[in-house]
């Protein structure tokens, strides 16, 4: 029996350690958009400190001393792993609420302090984890192979378990609770292994962490989000605690966790005794996508700008991304007879767009009208690879390339695949990342996207839209310009003002930038 418990403990120890590590990296990657940086340096530090821990923590001769050592090490690993994401959100909340800076997006947040907080805790997690294996090998010295195998089996389970919990849309609090509960099992088992149930006090730390997680984590994350999204600041440190009540008066933040991104629906209540009507904004991974005010200009510009430039009515249309359904609603209104396909990866985004009243108001409930268009739940790149249909118009409504993963959707290989699915004299229209970053960075990215499209084979390109920017492209070389006489009369004035060429900003540059590619360096 004891041998079985010992093996189970071996598995659970390595499972929880790697689970906490992967969870911390996931959280910090999602909030920063720097997946590659945190995944790589996090893994390196975790492994390095595992080595240091294996060297540093000594193995005792007596069985009971070793078990006591294991208890302390498990405490250390549990404390490090469970508090890492909490400390990150604590830092973010204080930084935004105290106004250390005024972030537009998390990329404006000082990532070095975030990295320091999380990487230090990852190091300590590695340190305490590394100290455990030599002790396990000492205790199980008669069957070292089995001990090693059990240890690595736990590590094997960590990744799939985390992916499974992500698929279940557990929030951070839920995931932390899972890790803490498994660790509690480990600690209780240690008490069993030394046959001293008086040692059950070892579970005090997990219980404290469970309570803390349940009480604090949700509040902390909401407080950070409120301060970040509403721009609420405090002058005195003492006011931090009451900020949450202020946030509740300003509006509501609804969080939907999807396997691919965090979806935040942020509403601002109308202000009393003012003309402010309130607003609603959709954020994906903390990046603004559109709000109630700007949505018509954005979607009208994308659709009517592209159709005006193409001078044709597309019969077969593909929309990649845009799971909010708003572009599809405009397309169905303007081209009710067109063969329309919407491809969206995130089923949670689709579900939210079908059920959330603010989004239904914008997309007119179009996602519930399944007979009007074809809905495909798939990765856009994957869909294009496997589908041989040709389209007259392809609208690409992806988020800006804030992360390495999103950058791949602006790559040469992606655009070459899109081009292969365009009918003769077909067109593409895509969101153009010009205006959302700091000015000097936006120009380089915009140039790179333009040059990437050219390399992919789009010979006619026109960037347009000083307020909501897009780029229109065709394969055949042609002189592109708006025909303002043919614009619909009932377009919003803001849309008409937005349908202006930005060619002059890009054609004058003789500088060559590296294209965006899945394989080339940057």
């Amino acid at each position, binding site marked *: 029996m004891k041998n079985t418990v010992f093996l189970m403990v071996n598995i659970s120890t390595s499972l929880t350690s790697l689970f906490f590590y*992967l969870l911390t990296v996931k959280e910090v990657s*999602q909030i920063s958009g720097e997946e590659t940086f945190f995944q790589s340096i996090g893994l390196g530090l975790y492994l390095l400190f595992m080595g240091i821990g294996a060297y540093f923590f000594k193995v005792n001769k007596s069985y009971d001393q070793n078990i006591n050592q294991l208890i302390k090490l498990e405490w250390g690993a549990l404390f490090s792993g469970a508090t890492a994401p909490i400390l990150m959100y604590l830092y973010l909340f204080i930084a935004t609420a105290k106004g250390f800076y005024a972030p537009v997006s998390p990329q404006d947040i000082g990532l070095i302090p975030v990295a320091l907080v999380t990487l230090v805790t990852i190091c300590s997690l590695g340190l305490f984890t590394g100290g455990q294996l030599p002790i396990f090998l000492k205790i199980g010295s008669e069957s070292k192979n089995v001990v090693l195998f059990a240890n690595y089996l736990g*590590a094997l389970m*960590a990744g799939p378990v*985390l*992916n499974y919990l992500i698929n279940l849309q557990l929030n951070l609090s839920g995931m932390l609770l899972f890790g803490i509960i498994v660790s509690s099992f480990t600690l209780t088992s240690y008490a069993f292994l030394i046959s001293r149930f008086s040692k059950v006090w070892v579970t005090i730390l997990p219980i404290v962490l469970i309570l803390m997680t349940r009480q604090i984590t949700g509040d902390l994350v909401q407080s950070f989000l409120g301060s970040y999204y509403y721009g609420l600041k405090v002058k005195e440190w003492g006011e931090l605690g009451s900020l949450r009540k202020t946030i509740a008066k300003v509006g509501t933040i609804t969080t939907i966790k999807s396997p691919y991104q965090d979806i935040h629906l942020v509403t601002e209540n109308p202000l009393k005794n003012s003309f402010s009507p309130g607003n609603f904004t959709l954020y994906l991974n903390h990046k603004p996508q559109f709000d109630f005010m700007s949505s018509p200009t954005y979607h009208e510009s994308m659709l009517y700008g592209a159709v005006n430039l193409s001078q044709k009515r597309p019969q077969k249309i593909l929309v990649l991304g845009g799971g909010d359904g708003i572009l599809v609603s405009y397309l169905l209104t303007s081209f009710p007879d067109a063969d329309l396909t919407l491809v969206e990866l995130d089923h949670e985004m689709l579900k939210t767009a079908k059920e959330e009243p603010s989004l239904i108001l914008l997309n007119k409930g179009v996602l519930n009208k399944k007979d009007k268009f074809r809905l495909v739940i798939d990765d856009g790149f994957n869909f294009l690879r496997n589908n041989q249909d040709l389209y007259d118009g392809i609208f690409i409504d992806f988020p800006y390339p804030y992360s390495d993963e999103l950058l791949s959707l602006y790559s040469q290989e992606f655009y070459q695949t899109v081009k292969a699915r365009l009918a003769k004299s077909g067109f593409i229209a895509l969101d153009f990342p010009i205006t959302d970053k700091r000015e000097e960075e936006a120009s380089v990215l915009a140039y790179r996207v333009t040059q990437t499209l050219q390399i992919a084979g789009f010979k006619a390109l026109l960037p347009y839209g000083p307020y909501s920017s897009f780029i229109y492209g065709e394969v055949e070389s042609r002189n592109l310009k708006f025909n303002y006489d043919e614009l619909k009369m009932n377009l919003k004035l803001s849309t008409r003002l937005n349908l202006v060429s930005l060619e002059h900003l890009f054609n004058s540059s003789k500088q060559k930038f590296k294209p965006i590619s899945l394989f080339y360096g940057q």
Partner: protein
Amino acid sequence: MSKISGNVYSFFFALCSLSYEFIFIKAATAIQGGQIFKYNLIVSLFTFSLGVGSLLSQKVWKENSLTILFKVELALFLVGVLGPVIVLMSHSMIICNVLIIMTGILSGYELPLLFNLNKNRDHEVIAWDYIGMFMASLLIPLVTLKVIGLGATTILIGCLNLTFALSLVRGKGFIKWLIPIPVLIGIFFSFYHFKINEILSYLYLQKVL
């Protein structure tokens, strides 16, 4: 094996092994996206495979450790260099996972064999092993993949791996004359990386188009 050479081999073999993992993560993300999901799965698979490899290596003949280590590194070179190409051409995550397991198992062989070759210096070997992995985590995703791209990074790491593998058996006949070849190839493709990445992009799109 001398103390310095033991540490050097430990460092570079660990660096190459973990580099292959990052290369496979990049290749897997290119064929299917979902970087966080892929990362979670690949880290778990690789860690588990390392363990399986170290268990399997218990069966090797201790007096033949040098030759076996050479063969392991040669196999790792082949899997590590050809693997990403196979993944990109096949667009198959199953094949990708199988290759990752193979890489992990082969990498898992390294440490026990290095222990055999460096008696009574287990701690040093482990320490340089972890330092090598740490350097890989800094250099590959943050420097080489960003600067010279996926194809050139794969060749560079493969050449590094092959160089040190050949140096294990440099005393045997003509082999010492082969050692500069992967060094030169690695340096060449580090500077002229555009073409190799272009070839990779072409192979990837063959399946698509």
